């Protein structure tokens, strides 16, 4: 195992090691020193703080000095720690993703943050991370040249904006949540004002005076927060491009903070073609992959195609992931059981109507608010019905070497492709009605950090178990 490259971290790591102590120690110390200089006196507190700071800074410097990375053709060796020395020997083929981030601060210092992820790490955090010189990061990537000419697919800012708008809660918030909150609070205010005006005139007047500005302020605060969330999501994803080079895939994005995720195609657990509620209006889909070990707060997923039409996304899918081609033997819900998809929305509709009638009869003052609430619920239920319709038409599962499922999850529709050996748990549920009709609901959990699952309902029990038995030799 000949070492090809020896790398040490950038001194800026010292700053990151001291980061937890900045606000409790370093900043008060600077303040105390300034104060001591002005007053021309040194007290014990300052001396103690100074001593602890020197100890911490020395410890951080030693910690930085002890961090070493050796790279060979097959392994990455990492040495770190002072009191508890650690030495990790990671085979290159076990690395699922290498994520590099370049923030404005990194531009100033000429550094890049490198995160190394394997399937063994904790969910939501990298196995190892360090700040390296840009030159060293380049050397690392040069060590693994790809023989295949890279193929780059770029996506326009408009498409990225569509993704940022439709796949994050920001745009939904601006378009739906803010007007609903605004209208609901306004109606509540009107009703309470009417109620109080009848009883206590003075309080009622005060309420009617202060309520509208409060409603407007709340609306503006919500609107600004959602707009900022949208902008953050947009700037994170803008400049989006995907590079395919043989076994490796790279996803690049960001404007102010440049982010690059390199992953081994072998590490892909599942591929999803997803459509969020807003994407249904735009008739657009996004393609994302679940990568073992790659972690951010939202789980081990990386978007590969931010927004594309149905035909385009399927075409890209078959080009990028040819090994995920599904088989034709799809198990669909039986014609006689399809009506059961409408069972829950109908039940919710009946409950909503009863609640609306009872509440509007009991509280006539709040009738405006109750009617508005009913209209919102009816709209949500109408969408729920559309999902039920989608399930009756499209939901299916193919239990084959490549597992394919078409289903709805919460408010999104999803097509998922996954190799059968990546499935961890198969969970079959049968309600009393299922036993009568010989049907079942099946949930397959993908063996990954995020443990993503596929749920398909009301399919033939015998067909499914036969397929599972023959595939897994159970």
């Amino acid at each position, binding site marked *: 195992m000949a070492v090809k490259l020896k790398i040490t971290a950038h001194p800026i790591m010292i700053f990151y090691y001291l980061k937890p102590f900045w606000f409790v120690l370093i900043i008060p110390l600077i303040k105390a020193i300034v104060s001591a200089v002005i007053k021309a006196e040194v007290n014990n507190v300052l001396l103690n703080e100074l001593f602890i700071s020197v100890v911490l800074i020395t410890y951080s410097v030693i910690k930085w000095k002890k961090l070493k990375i050796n790279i060979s053709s*097959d*392994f990455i060796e990492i040495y770190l*720690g002072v*009191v508890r020395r*650690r*030495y990790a*020997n990671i*085979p290159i083929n076990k690395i699922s993703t290498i994520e590099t981030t370049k923030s404005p601060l990194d531009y100033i210092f000429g550094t890049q943050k490198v995160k190394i992820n394997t*399937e*063994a790490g904790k969910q939501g955090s990298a196995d190892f991370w360090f700040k390296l010189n840009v030159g060293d990061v380049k050397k690392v990537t040069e060590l693994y040249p790809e023989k295949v000419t890279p193929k780059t697919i770029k996506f326009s800012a408009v498409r990225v904006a569509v993704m940022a708008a439709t796949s994050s809660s920001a745009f939904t918030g601006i378009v739906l949540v803010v007007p609903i909150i605004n209208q609901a609070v306004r109606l509540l205010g009107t009703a309470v004002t009417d109620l109080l005006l009848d009883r206590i005139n003075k309080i009622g007047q005060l309420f009617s005076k202060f309520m509208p500005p409060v409603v407007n302020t709340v609306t503006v605060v919500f609107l600004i927060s959602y707009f900022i969330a949208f902008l953050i999501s947009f700037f994170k994803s803008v400049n989006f491009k995907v590079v395919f080079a043989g076994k490796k895939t790279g996803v690049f994005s960001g404007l102010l903070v440049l982010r690059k995720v390199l992953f081994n195609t072998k590490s892909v657990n599942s591929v999803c073609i997803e459509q969020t509620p807003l994407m249904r209006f735009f008739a657009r889909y996004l393609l994302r992959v679940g990568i073992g070990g790659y972690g951010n707060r939202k789980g081990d997923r990386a978007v590969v195609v931010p927004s594309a039409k149905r035909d385009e996304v399927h075409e890209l899918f078959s080009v990028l992931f040819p090994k995920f081609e599904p088989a034709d033997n799809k198990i669909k819900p039986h014609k006689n059981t399809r009506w059961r998809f409408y069972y829950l929305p109908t039940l919710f509709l009946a409950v909503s109507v009863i609640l609306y009638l009872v509440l509007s009869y009991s509280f006539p003052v709040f009738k405006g608010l109750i009617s508005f609430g009913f209209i919102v619920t009816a709209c949500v239920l109408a969408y729920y019905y559309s999902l039920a319709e989608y399930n009756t038409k499209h939901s299916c599962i193919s239990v084959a070497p490549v597992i394919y499922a078409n289903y709805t999850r919460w408010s999104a529709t999803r097509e998922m492709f996954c190799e059968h050996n990546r499935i961890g748990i198969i969970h079959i549920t049968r309600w009393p009605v299922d036993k009568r009709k010989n049907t079942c609901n099946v949930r397959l959990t993908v063996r990954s950090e995020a443990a993503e699952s596929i749920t398909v309902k009301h399919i033939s029990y015998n067909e499914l178990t036969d397929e599972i038995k023959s595939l897994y030799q159970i």
Partner: protein
Amino acid sequence: MKTYLPPKSTLIVWQIRVTVLLALLVAVLYWFIADYFLVLFCVSLVLAVVFNLIYFPAFLRCYSISVNQNAIIIKSGVFIKHERILPFPRMIYAEKQQTLVAKAFSVSALVLRVARAATLTVELKDNDIAEIMKAVAKWQ
């Protein structure tokens, strides 16, 4: 199949750790409840004797790591016996961890990382750790 047993220095490392920990605990508690110092001291002494002279020697006698062609098998447990089998194909990487005390005795612990889990072993000789890490690396 090769079996690795914890050396005697592992026991000394653990005895030092427990003694220091109990001494620190007694010192901190003395700060708050000085009246019961004698009781605290006696309890700590009993704990130190139980752990250092009875439990740890027994625990380390029962501890072994075996490496065969396909897996690493870790056997442990004084009262309840455990046997953990880590097949090489499921293993992601191995990590060596060494504290300052362990370094003084040339022993270190091993973390075997598999998908979504990790197993920490007791301290073994540095040479043995290097051999196990080599076996893990060779399989990759």
